[in-house]
């Protein structure tokens, strides 16, 4: 399946500072610090799709009330997320749910490798947090019209759907179909650059995700009421 070091998408790797301002490491360091300061019930981890969510109103409305932390980092591949989680971003915290959304930036890897990388991360999370549920989000389609990356992302989702159930703690949520119009196009009203979501686009994802999270959080033995506005 994920094949350890045979799968390049499952090799932990930090991002090199090519631009010269050390921003990737600064963000990672901040996340590690947040693990010392916070007690999240929900942890979001992934790439810019995760990171950008925190900048919009939807985060304050739907996810902050659940005591969520956001460890999204733009540009990250499965390798980068793996490295971050192994180097401090899971220390001192015991979230009940981890939302994992990564894979669209794995340009050097095949769909099989990417799916294997995502499963490897889910496996790591299950090992480190045996009581947590892992919600893996499906990779969204990208590009204004049908193109090879859409097929690749759809293949990743297909593989995840069949591989994740073996992990027991992992759930898969895919809202891809909500973004495809009948002519196969994606609207800039949903993805302003045919990759990143607008506030409207995030609303489409947030409702089913929030419902799922509330369901999971309510299942756990301790009484905890999410303070909904």
């Amino acid at each position, binding site marked *: 399946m994920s094949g350890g070091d045979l799968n390049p998408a499952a090799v932990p790797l930090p991002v090199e500072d090519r631009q010269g301002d050390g921003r990737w490491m600064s963000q990672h360091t901040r996340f590690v610090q947040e693990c010392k300061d916070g007690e999240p019930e929900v942890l979001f981890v992934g790439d810019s799709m995760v990171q950008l969510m925190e900048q919009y109103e939807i985060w304050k409305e739907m996810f902050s009330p659940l005591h969520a932390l956001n460890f999204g980092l733009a540009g990250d591949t499965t390798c980068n997320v793996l490295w971050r989680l192994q180097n401090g971003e899971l220390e001192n915290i015991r979230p009940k749910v981890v939302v994992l959304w990564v894979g669209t930036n794995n340009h050097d890897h095949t769909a099989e490798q990417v799916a294997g990388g995502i499963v490897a991360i889910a496996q790591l999370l299950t090992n480190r947090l045996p009581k947590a549920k892992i919600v893996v989000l499906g990779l969204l389609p990208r590009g204004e019209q049908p193109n090879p990356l859409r097929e690749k992302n759809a293949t990743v989702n297909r593989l995840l759907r069949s591989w994740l159930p073996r992990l027991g703690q992992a759930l898969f949520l895919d809202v891809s179909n909500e973004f495809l119009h009948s002519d196969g196009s994606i609207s*800039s009203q949903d993805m302003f650059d045919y990759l990143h979501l607008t506030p409207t686009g995030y609303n489409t994802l947030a409702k089913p995700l929030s419902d799922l999270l509330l369901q999971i959080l309510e299942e756990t033995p301790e009484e905890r009421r999410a303070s909904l506005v």
Partner: protein
Amino acid sequence: MSAEASNPAATPTPCEDSQGDGRWMSQHVRFVSECKEREPDVVFVGDSLVQLMHQFGIWRQLFSPLHCLNFGIGGDATQHVLWRLSNGELDNISPKVVVLWVGTNNHGHTAEQIASGIMEIVQLIHNKLPNAHTLVLGVLPRGRMPNPLRQRNAEVNKLVQDALSSLSHASFFNVDPGFVLSDGSISHQDMYDYLHLTAHGYQAVCEPLHAQIKSLLDKPLIIRAKSIV
């Protein structure tokens, strides 16, 4: 005489579709058709700092009422903006103000090259839209702590400000409200990844910018006779 041929930052260059979903060209084509459909008084042009502005509430609040179009594309450097403006994004429109914000993504270029690239764009806009005023926004500092890119961006601003001081159709506007704190750091409350602005960061930038644009729009249109060379 300027040496555009030997300055990559001042040579119109489209973005290559290295990922495979044609998103850059899709966005450019969309902007060109917006030029045919709309009659903006203000056009914003540049990189992700321009593009993301459009996603926050502040855009609808401050800029939509001024009849603005947003032609920002994430990742764009000066040579990309130069290409887009040479290939349709200034056609069929007669805005009174063009807001130009670009330069931070010119990796590998010197401050001099970047500044020349910006001035090349200013000249192009003046050639195509002789009655428009171009407002060139200063490139913001970046990175959590002091680093070479901050020095480069500051140098770009100095060179551009000098070059613009002799022009009547364009001016420099500093939108940095003081993001760098006394200890040299930039807060993630202002730039969530030490480059891109949060809603809070945009508030600090957009309020003065809005006031400046309004004052330009309120000026009577001066019809200049063609200058005799």
